[in-house]
């Protein structure tokens, strides 16, 4: 698995948001994408996922261009996004939400995948018949990740998974992400929790105003004076 983004430009109508993004994610890596509110992180994810079509540039997955492919094709190839705000199906049960995770991919192994996910998130199985809209924020986040895992991702994109979670849960969430990665999953982690993300990531990109401002290995970036000043106020 490799994902390469080359000179990606994206816009909403006339409003340009991304001005030539270059980045790369290799097999087995956790790559963090950091940046302040409105920097264009979710825009990048949604252009990769085929929710929006890039204005120009290229997105290459395993050597094949996926630029402008519709979202169902991107999912079929194994790029699965767990979006910001979870976007679970509120009117459906937890079990139905998980089931739909395997709508396009992993359809024939739904039962095995479900078993595996339940062992990762035992709390979900206690709430199989509860409507997803009535879950707590943390439970919804687990459900959203569980739903993503049902599609047997080759690359999992997590858009601010720690958003709205209590500090204790945030800690758990980062441990879980590191654990999923240890099991071999490649992860693109979009976050505002700079320190915790850099602790588990291999490499990171920082975007500002739609361009990559900084990039490098997570260890280097943790000590980067510019990053520490801008994002940690140190």
């Amino acid at each position: 698995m490799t994902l390469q983004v080359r000179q990606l430009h994206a816009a909403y109508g006339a409003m340009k948001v991304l001005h030539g993004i270059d980045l790369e994610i290799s097999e087995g890596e956790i790559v963090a994408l950091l940046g302040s509110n409105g920097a264009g992180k979710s825009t990048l994810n949604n252009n990769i996922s085929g929710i929006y079509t890039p204005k120009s540039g290229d997105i290459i997955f395993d050597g094949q261009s996926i630029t402008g492919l519709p979202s169902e094709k991107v999912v079929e190839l194994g790029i699965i996004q767990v979006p910001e705000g979870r976007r679970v199906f509120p009117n459906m049960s937890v079990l139905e939400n998980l089931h739909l995770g395997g709508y396009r991919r992993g359809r024939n192994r739904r039962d095995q995948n479900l078993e595996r996910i339940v062992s990762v998130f035992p709390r979900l199985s206690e709430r199989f018949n509860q409507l997803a809209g009535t879950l707590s924020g943390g439970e919804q986040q687990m459900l959203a990740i569980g739903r993503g895992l049902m599609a047997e991702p080759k690359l999992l994109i997590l858009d601010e998974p720690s958003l709205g979670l209590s500090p204790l849960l945030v800690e758990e969430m980062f441990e879980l992400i590191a654990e999923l990665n240890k099991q071999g999953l490649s992860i693109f982690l979009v976050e505002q929790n700079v320190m915790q993300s850099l602790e588990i990531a291999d490499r990171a990109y920082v975007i500002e105003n739609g361009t990559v401002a900084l990039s490098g290995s997570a260890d280097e970036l943790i000590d980067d004076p510019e990053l520490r000043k801008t994002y940690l106020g140190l």
Partner: protein
Amino acid sequence: MDFFDFNLPSYGWSTVLGSAISGVFLGSIYALVALGLTLIYGVLHIINFAHGALLMLAMYAVYFLWQAFGIDPYLAMLIVVPGGFVFGYLLQRGVIGKASHGRDEIILLVTLGISIIIENAALFFFSATERSVRVPYDLDGFDLGVTFVVYPELAALGGSLLITFLLWLFMIKTDTGKAIRAVAKERQGARLVGINVDHIFAVCFGIGVACVAAAASLLVPTYAVHPQIGYLFVLIAFTVVVLGGMGSFVGALVGGFLIGIFEQLGRLYLGESLGVITISFIFILVLLFRPSGLFGKPAG
């Protein structure tokens, strides 16, 4: 002469009950027409103004299948229901979806345009003449004591209930049904699990038209077909949808029955022409006191 000096006729309970029962039969067809409308509204978030015109078109299809090939209107369901599905699917995927670029206000105008085209084409090709199918059993039936039930009425009730039940099963048991429910409430989430939203929209439109086609088969043995017939039913179906709650299946069913019963009781007490105003009256009452309908969720 005192304008207000008139009395409602007084009837025995058996006459009233008989009227209410015939209202149930009529209401089951309203429910079926409303079901398609409410499904399209619930998922695409648009009101399909072409619904009535499509009902009329389906009724002509049933009529011509009978006239040209002698196919029984009920048997014709096996042709017009799948045909309606395909027609609806292609109409949404090929015309409405393409023309509207995902903007709801344009979709509305496009469906309005389609209804005008279908109605005028029907006037041109089929003329305004009323046409009716004569089935040998249209007056057969059995006596309930309070009223005489003809088989076409029974078929309407049985057919509508069966179709509603099958559709409900489809929505909760199948992957496509679940995808429809997912798209209804969370389009972006649906896209991210790989649901093709355009396909699901078209499937919903197809199911809506298939419901209308089934209603057409159930109607033709008792109703004459003419280019304006769609209006009658679809205006009532709108009322049913608003009464039951926009997007609610149960609402469409219960609303259909209630409207059918009110209409028949209105006819009994106020006469053939004035009786129909009970429907408008209910419509206004619902909008005043419970705008989200009986089974709809209040907005906000």
